[in-house]
């Protein structure tokens, strides 16, 4: 490996700033994520958590700063190019194709035939079908493959979206509130799922549910008003007086 300082990290965000009409939603942010790391960002409403994800995946353009993923600069790329570099992102509300079946949802996400003509002549080979079945099993939806996605329960929709990302085998997986609206049992299952899928890739999660965060996080960053308030292991962060003040004072 080269001697550059950040090569060890899968994702390195440095000095990232974005402002909307003078309001700095994210302010000189620095954030590093390792391979195999499951990193959780927490913070009160309006702290800029979702904006950070938007910046990484290219939905929002930064005002200044850099985002390097596997040593490639992302800020100049368009959304689909960033995805093709290996970054997957789940949205806050489940974003799936309600009119397509679960199978078709996964098939559409399959990382082949991504061009216009590629998709016209895309063949549903056994390889594709096997891969879809494998992912469906992983996200506990194998029995629902033919169900129209709109008919799934809220939790199942969340899983489906995660599955649609997994089928692309991303190196960085970003999940915005993956257990929102889930039952206790579904949370359990999701925690297991997240632990399993963080092997071999980096995972960046935004979450409110502290109990859940404690269960899954390798590392936690607390964001407040666009800036990092604290970072480190969950138990350390929880003791931090600044963090307590922000959460209680809120």
């Amino acid at each position, binding site marked *: 490996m080269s001697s550059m300082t950040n090569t060890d990290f899968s994702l390195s965000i440095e000095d990232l700033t974005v402002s909307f009409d003078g309001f700095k939603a994210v302010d000189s942010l620095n954030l590093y994520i390792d391979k195999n790391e499951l990193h959780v960002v927490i913070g009160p409403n309006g702290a800029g958590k979702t904006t950070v994800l938007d910046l990484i995946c290219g939905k929002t353009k930064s005002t200044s700063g850099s985002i390097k993923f596997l040593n490639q600069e992302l800020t100049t790329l368009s959304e689909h190019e960033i995805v093709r570099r290996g970054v997957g992102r789940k949205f806050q509300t489940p974003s799936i*194709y309600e009119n397509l079946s679960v199978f078709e949802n996964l098939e559409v996400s399959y990382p082949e035939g991504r061009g216009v003509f590629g998709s016209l002549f895309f063949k549903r080979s056994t390889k594709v079908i096997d891969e879809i079945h494998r992912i469906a099993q992983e996200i506990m939806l194998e029995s629902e493959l033919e169900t129209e996605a709109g008919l799934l329960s809220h939790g199942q929709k969340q899983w489906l979206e995660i599955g649609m990302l997994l089928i692309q085998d991303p190196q960085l997986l970003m999940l915005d509130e993956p257990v929102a609206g889930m039952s206790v049992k579904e949370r359990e299952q999701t925690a297991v799922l997240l632990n399993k899928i963080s092997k071999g890739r980096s995972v960046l999660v935004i979450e409110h549910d502290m109990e859940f965060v404690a269960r899954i996080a390798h590392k936690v960053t607390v964001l407040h008003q666009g800036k990092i308030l604290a970072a480190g292991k969950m138990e350390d962060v929880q003791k931090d007086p600044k963090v307590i003040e922000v959460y209680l004072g809120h």
Partner: protein
Amino acid sequence: MSFIYDKLLGGKSGALGLLVLSILILVVFPLALDGFRLNLIGKYLTYAFAAMSLVLLWGYGGTLSLGQGIFFGLGGYCMAMFLKLEASSPENTAIQSTPGIPDFMDWNQITELPWFWEPFSSFGFTIAAILIVPALFAYIIGVAMFKRRVGGVYFAIITQVIAVILTVLIVGQQGFTGGINGITDLRTLNGWDMTSDSAKYLFYYINCALLITVIVLSRFILTSKFGRLLLAIRDKEDRVRFSGYDVANFKIFIFCFAALVSAIGGAMFTLQVGFMSPSFVGIVPSIEMVIFAAVGGRMSLIGVVYGTLLINFGKTTFSESFPELWLFLMGGTFIAVVMFFPNGLAGLWEEYSTPLMKKIRAKIQPSVTAKPSSSSYETKESK
């Protein structure tokens, strides 16, 4: 074989639907109707091309164009330019101050054929132009709009404005375009009398053949992964984008294809009706095309053919007997379709015929139970 069956004909119900339509337009109409009525049907069917282009673009792609008249008109004008040049031979136009150019140019003191008219003396070039010019124009608009992520309502309004621009331009530059009268008095195609009965039958059958070809081609697109992506883009554009697709390219492609399909309709219109005018380019015809699609069912390639036929037939009959009522009926249909039958005729058919068919089938083969089929993952294209 199964490729053809599944992908091009759209499986069992799709193939059946196509078969019924083909028999209707290829056999029943020519046998049942006199030349005059058949020619009318032929004219209506050219609008069906535009309506089908909207199925792809709007029904599946979720992008409503209020400017399909642009492409219908461009196709029609390309064909009309060729025919007009043929009709403007120096012998036919000896009476003009400059023989050999179209009459309307002569009236507007133009003494030389404009450069962009010249290539249209070649039939081959004209056919190429009908296929390429509208698609290219759509490509330019598409790149400019979709790459900048102009969509939805804004796209609809901007396409409408482009239709207005084109109409004003055609009307204003009448020395080059024939103005508001359009390009008229087209009689022969390669020396062959277009107005004869045999020609009319031939054009009718060519029109039908092209229509069926377009349906089959569109089916291929819609049953491919591209088709599912279109639906996906319609429902959750961002999700598609964040699954690694350059969404704009897909929209541009389907917009170009839709333009091409409309243009074929326009060219066939000119051949069968014998003239082309700016009244097929502007806002009103463009919105009427949307009506045809909405009434037939915006998700059904075959449904819109029936929708187009029904509306136009209604227009002809009603305006003959109750011209007063026609606009009320048209407006009412429009509102009713939007509010109560968003899937149009095709939706109604599905709702009422499918249970009926099931009942009949159950009576005939009571022992057959649902079994998993190999095509169980196929996208359901409605009829």
